[in-house]
């Protein structure tokens, strides 16, 4: 089953899990499956029209899905989907 890496800011919605296994044929199906299992994640990932929010980067293994087939990119059982929001933290305060 494909794995999804959950960033720290979304772990509250996944019960603290940093890796969640979700069934799905493509990236969109995997992420929607994640959102169904963990309500609260979906609102952060998708905009009102169901597209990925631009501030969320999603990678299939090490490639940005926007440069592959977007949400329609096929996902295999051994693949990892990485959800990657920007993080600002460093050391206060520049």
């Amino acid at each position, binding site marked *: 089953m494909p794995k999804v890496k959950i960033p*720290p800011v979304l772990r509250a919605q996944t019960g603290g899990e940093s890796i969640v296994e979700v069934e799905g044929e493509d990236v969109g199906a995997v992420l929607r499956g994640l959102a169904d299992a963990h309500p609260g994640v979906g609102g952060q990932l998708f905009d009102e029209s169901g597209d990925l929010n631009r501030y969320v*980067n999603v990678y299939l293994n090490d490639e940005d899905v926007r440069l592959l087939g977007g949400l329609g990119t096929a996902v295999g059982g051994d693949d990892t989907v990485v959800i*990657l929001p920007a993080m*600002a933290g460093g050391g206060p305060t*520049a």
Partner: protein
Amino acid sequence: MKAPVSGADLIARAKAEIEEVQPTEAAAEIESADVTLVDVREQTEFEERHIDGAIHIPRSYLESRFEQFVPDRSRRIILYCASGIRSALAAKTLAEDLGYEDVSSMAGGITLWRDRGLPVVTPRSLTQEQKERYSRHILVPEIGLEGQMKMLDAKVLLLGAGGLGSPSALYLAAAGIGTLGLIDDDVVDASNLQRQVIHNTDRIGVPKTESARLAIEALNPDVDVVEHHGRLDAGNVIELLSDYDVIVDGADNFPTRYLLNDASVRLRKPVVSASILSFDGQLSTFVPYEGPCYRCLYPTPPPPELAPSCGAAGVLGMLPGIMGLLQALEVFKLVTGAGDPLIGRLLLFEALGTEFTELKVKRDPDCPICGPNAPQIADGDLGKFPDYDLFCAG
């Protein structure tokens, strides 16, 4: 047994037996004819100054090394030392014992040469103290004396003297980065000390730039620390960045990160960027037009609920230590040209699993800052974009 002879007599005899040339004659020969000029003084004398084009074979190594450098016995050779004595004795050895046929000693040595107004070169070198301090770098072939000199010449600006800036500043200072600029408007707080190791308990309440300077100066007096106590803003970013070769981004908020990106692309300055949250770190090196910029990776900042600061969310102290040191490593690579910097690669580190993951980042052809169709942006508008007001998560 031979009758004893005074040193002065020995030198006088040697001078009588060998050929001597005057500095002006030597200079003319060097310019016109095929001649090998050899400096027979000690290492430190040669390093201080020598005649351009001279090869260096100290007199003490004459017998063991000369043939390696000058295998042809009929070659025209001019030797020099400081005043013409050591070169006279060396010329005698070369002619009588080693069979060189056309050897001269330059009368008066490099001292008379300089008195005649003839040019010398003064190669840059490290002081004895520096050679000792950086000996473990110099021993590494990928660094060597040359790499160490590059580090001593480098000017690196650290944005933030906090969690990430503390370890990078300490290790960059220890490594001999010649100039370290520090931008931070904060003062040391007790809650910083769990991770900001450049500061200490005695300096609670002291501006971080000053506290960091004190630590760096105690560690390595070679480093010139430039304090910029204040915030980076659109009004000072261009001027501040202009003086530096590499920027280390350890900022704690998105507006500063976008501002830094936009200005660094304009000035074509590489930025080593790291960020941390709880147990997760991210790291990449943005070299303008060579790889993606920060906006290619993150075109839009997340809303505040997805971008808590370390102050609000907490962070394990070792995490910025690891990420800040990786930043220092990237600086080393950029400055010396060694290795492969993280250009177009985003490194993720997850501390609890001790897991490193690398993602590919490509240049965005539609990037509003480094893309081919990027518009001209006025200095005052750097770091801004339409939803600027929405993303202040600092």
